[in-house]
């Protein structure tokens, strides 16, 4: 199982709007394309800093991601999602993670 983790920076007053985009457009596009929703979390909006919103999606491997990617690119909603999310964020990162096996304690 792999995780795609997008961590974006959003002004505090736009967090609710950004989360709405995640809950609607992103959820529909990503899950219809074949990804699974894992989690969504934010940092505090009460500490005088921009809020970080971290959204995690799961899929099997890069083979499956390639299919998901194709499905997304061919879905007009994906481009609307991209435009809308870009208009709300001020920065961020995208990283792919694979599980690491830890030695027993």
């Amino acid at each position, binding site marked *: 199982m792999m995780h795609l983790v997008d961590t974006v920076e959003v002004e505090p007053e736009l967090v609710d709007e950004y989360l709405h985009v995640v809950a609607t457009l992103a959820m529909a596009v990503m899950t219809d394309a074949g990804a699974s929703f894992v989690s969504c979390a934010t940092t505090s909006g009460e500490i005088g800093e921009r809020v970080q919103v971290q959204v995690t999606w799961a899929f099997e491997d*890069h083979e499956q*991601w390639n299919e998901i990617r194709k499905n997304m690119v061919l879905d007009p909603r994906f481009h609307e999602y991209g435009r809308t*999310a870009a208009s709300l964020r001020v920065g961020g990162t995208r990283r792919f993670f694979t599980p690491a096996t830890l030695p027993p304690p």
Partner: protein
Amino acid sequence: MLRRFEVYALRPDAPAEGVRALEAACRDCGRFIPEVLDCAVGTNLSDAPVQIVWEHAYASPEAYRRYMVHPYHAVVLDRYLLPDSPERLVIDGPLGAGLYGYGCGAPSYRMRSGIRRLVLLRLEAGVPEAEVQRLGQALERVRPDAPGMVVSVFAPNTMGAAWFDGVTPVMGPPRWTHIWEQGFSSLDALDAYRHGGSALADVERVGWDEWMGGIVKRSAELFYAMTTTAAQESGE
């Protein structure tokens, strides 16, 4: 072989450091995905509103499919490109999808350095194949009267629609139906061609409308100085 071009229009506020990282990611792609051949990157010098061109090739559709599923593709290249990526540096391209390419039997496009020019062509719908072949022969025959043109390849833009596996179209016909790929030894050589007396330079100056029955309906050009990893390492 599959010959492929990705053309990027940058966000107006794209940070210079990020743009350099994108260029390096494209230029060095073959180091991480051995199936990616003949990587070169250039900054567009034409008036077309795009900034970066990444040219490369694959030995076969199977090699292309390995590129498509390679982590470097998804993790590094797409970081700067996919519409939903928080690190996206590009905007939707004004020249269409921004992906062009063709199949070929041998790397006749290959040159180590110089100026690459892409002429994107839109042919009239329903033109008989014999007419298309006649056009291709005329374009590829241009070199004797344009001595600075060291590469001239004409082909249908198959990669524009078959971007998923290199063979099967997954979307409708591309805006630019054909590609005329050229190579020049230098900018002076390109200028000499453009302002020279060859029949095709004249067609390009006057417009394609009156030539070969007007089957070329639209055209656009890009040209750039090729930058390769080898050139970077040797300080060229």
